[in-house]
């Protein structure tokens, strides 16, 4: 078994392309999030796209490659922050003498980027939560794989000695 002896990695071309695409996919994800109220997509879809960038990096570099770019502890806090932001945006309606989740901010003209009141802000909050949530999920699941690979390797070396 060649794969378990070496740290997990794919060919140079794949890794370079992944590194180049990483930024592009991130930008596309952000685009989908902030244009959620005027084009198809939104916080959730954009968040998943953003997380796909991390998943791609994970596929190309493995867990060791990813932790240099993103740390799951920080991502976990981002996730909670997104949820709190969403919660607070709901409260804006209550403070403005309407009810929870009421859309009370500046509505603007339909079709422009800055319009639709709280909805784009909520999209950003949801995007934050979903992107970091899915990324954390995948990173944590790959930690187990990383350690079991390491463990198998150590076991094999022990058997050889």
């Amino acid at each position, binding site marked *: 078994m060649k794969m378990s002896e070496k740290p997990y990695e794919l060919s140079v071309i794949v890794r370079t392309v992944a590194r180049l695409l990483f930024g592009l996919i991130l930008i596309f994800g952000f685009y989908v999030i902030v244009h959620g109220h005027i084009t198809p997509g939104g916080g959730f879809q954009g968040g998943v796209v953003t997380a796909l960038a991390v998943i791609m990096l994970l596929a190309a570099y493995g867990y060791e490659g990813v932790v240099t770019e993103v740390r799951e502890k920080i991502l976990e806090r981002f996730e909670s922050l997104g949820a709190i932001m969403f919660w607070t945006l709901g409260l804006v309606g209550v403070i403005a003498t309407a009810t929870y989740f009421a859309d009370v901010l500046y509505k603007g003209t339909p079709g422009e980027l800055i319009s639709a009141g709280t909805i784009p802000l909520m999209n950003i909050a949801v995007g934050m939560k979903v992107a970091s949530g899915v990324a954390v999920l995948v990173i944590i699941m*790959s930690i187990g*794989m990383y350690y079991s690979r390491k463990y198998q390797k150590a076991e094999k070396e022990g058997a050889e000695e």
Partner: protein
Amino acid sequence: MDLYSISLTLVLVVTFVGAIAAVYFRDLLNAVVALAVMSGGLALAFFLMEAPDVAIAEAALGAGAITAIFILAIGETEREEKE
């Protein structure tokens, strides 16, 4: 049947075949890839039924995130479905 119904039916047939393959394959990695095919077909069907929001979500999740976590889980467990 008009062109729209025919294309929708074809897409749904692909979806259904993907689902059957996902259940049928003994190699779990193949099954997960078939599941991704099902999700892709479903996303296309959603798009044809004028639900682009849902189509994007289904495509990003079904072909991306869900496949990734399935593959990670299979990588940590076993690949063959035993009898």
